[in-house]
């Protein structure tokens, strides 16, 4: 493991990976419980449009992606709050517009599509010094805001109506979640790739939900599972020369399957004990 650290790019990837590994599940817990698991995916595709636009305009792609995703997240949240019934449809429209714009713009980029692809699939070798700085900066901002409004977020997620009546500014909190999700997507895409950003927000949380018996433990276990996935995935992908994002996500999926099966087996044995007792 330690010899990996001789490589500068590996140091950068590990640092960026650790940060992303905290960020994604923390925001993901709220998305899953609010039934918005797929918003990360939608914003990811919009981020790709932002990346290609940045590429064309000669702007730092992470910056252009951040701007585009934050604006889209605000739009999605505004429409969702007005017409909750159509939240799904609104997200789909943004999602496809994102891909469509990205396809058009990338067809206009004549040279060097290899680098664009590194955004899609995530890549550790292309993580630059400025990427790490951006990721670190945004992570601090997002975690700072999350820490500040954490208890309000939990209350709104649990019961939005009660929270609203108690005087919590629900609309502001919802807008904040949307913006933080957008920032998280922009931060994470360098490592896991646009196509799999959402996976790191969803799968470690899904695994944690199988094992945890309080909100606190759900959050902590999700971060632990996510960090294990990121670190194991990075090392594995380096050793076996596999795609980074895919390896990280498949590690998380493996943990999820383990957690799911262990819960089912526990439930099964409990149920059997139950029937024995009643016999």
């Amino acid at each position, binding site marked *: 493991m330690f010899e990996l650290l001789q490589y500068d790019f590996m140091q950068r990837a590990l640092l960026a990976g650790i940060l992303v590994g905290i960020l994604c599940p923390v925001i993901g817990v709220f998305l899953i419980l609010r039934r918005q698991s797929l918003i990360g995916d939608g914003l990811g595709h919009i981020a790709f449009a932002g990346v290609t636009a940045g590429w064309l305009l000669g702007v730092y792609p992470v910056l252009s992606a951040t701007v585009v995703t934050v604006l889209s997240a605000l739009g999605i949240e505004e429409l969702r709050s007005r017409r909750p019934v159509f939240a799904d449809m609104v997200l789909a429209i943004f999602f496809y517009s994102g891909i469509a714009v990205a396809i058009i713009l990338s067809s206009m980029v004549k040279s060097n599509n290899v680098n664009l692809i590194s955004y899609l699939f995530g890549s550790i070798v292309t993580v630059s010094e400025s990427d790490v700085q951006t990721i670190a900066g945004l992570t601090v901002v997002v975690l700072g805001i999350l820490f500040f409004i954490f208890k309000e977020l939990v209350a709104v997620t649990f019961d939005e109506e009660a929270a609203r009546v*108690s005087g919590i500014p629900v609309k502001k909190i919802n807008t904040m979640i949307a913006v933080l999700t957008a920032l998280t997507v922009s931060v994470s895409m360098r490592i896991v790739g646009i196509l799999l950003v959402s996976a790191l927000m969803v799968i470690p949380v899904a695994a944690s939900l199988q094992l945890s018996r309080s909100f606190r433990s759900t959050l902590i276990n999700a971060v632990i599972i996510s960090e294990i996935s990121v670190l194991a995935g990075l090392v594995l992908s380096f050793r076996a020369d596999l795609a980074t994002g895919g390896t990280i996500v498949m590690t998380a999926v493996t943990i999820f399957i383990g957690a799911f099966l262990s819960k089912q087996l526990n439930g099964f044995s409990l149920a059997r004990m139950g029937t024995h007792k009643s016999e």
Partner: protein
Amino acid sequence: MNVLAIKEVSFSYLPSQPVFEQINLTIGQGRFLAMVGPNGAGKSTLLKLCVGLLKPTAGRIELLGTPLEQFKDWSKVVYIAQQTLRDRNFPATVEEVVAMGRVAPAGIGNRLKKADYDLVEEMLITVGMQDFRKRMIGELSGGQQQRVAIAKALVAKPEVLLLDEATSGVDTATRENIYSLLRSINQAQRMSIIMVSHDVECISHYADQIANVDGGITYYGDPADFQQFCRLQRGSRPAQGDWGEISYV
């Protein structure tokens, strides 16, 4: 001072189907008012109007003497919805849920302190759920969930509690138990309670006022007289308007 004043309020979800037309109701401080009435009569709607989750199409509502649009003292009001737990799989313990009641009173961005958690413990004991503090909220029975919802309301130390009773999953004994708990809180802490109830017979022993909601307020007054009203209604049904304006407060 009145806790709540509903003045000439009209409301409809769909323009063609008014739920209320120009209803009036005033409730004095320290009261325990039970709202009863058939399914779909508008009880939940009325409660949501009172806490500003719905806006009346006409008329005005005053909470603690202030028109709703200007009302700022939300820390003094707690609302418990008919369905308190939307997601049975929500990963939170009883203790964590009750602590959520302290979120708004503690102030935005502030951590909960030891005093907040002491209050959580105290209210868990008040509602008799202290042995369940580490249990997952979704694993409780309907009646237990309602107790937790009440504890979550109580930790906010409100002056007014508006409670929409759950229809399902609560047996008569548990229901009576909760009514008597609310009655003692109402008396001990002078907290005004406005509660939707689905058991007229039973709530009459605990509440000190009854409002019958049925497309309007068709009765408002003493629980004892309400029996009389029901008998009357079974015989010759009085015109709804005759009862709409009566106020003993």
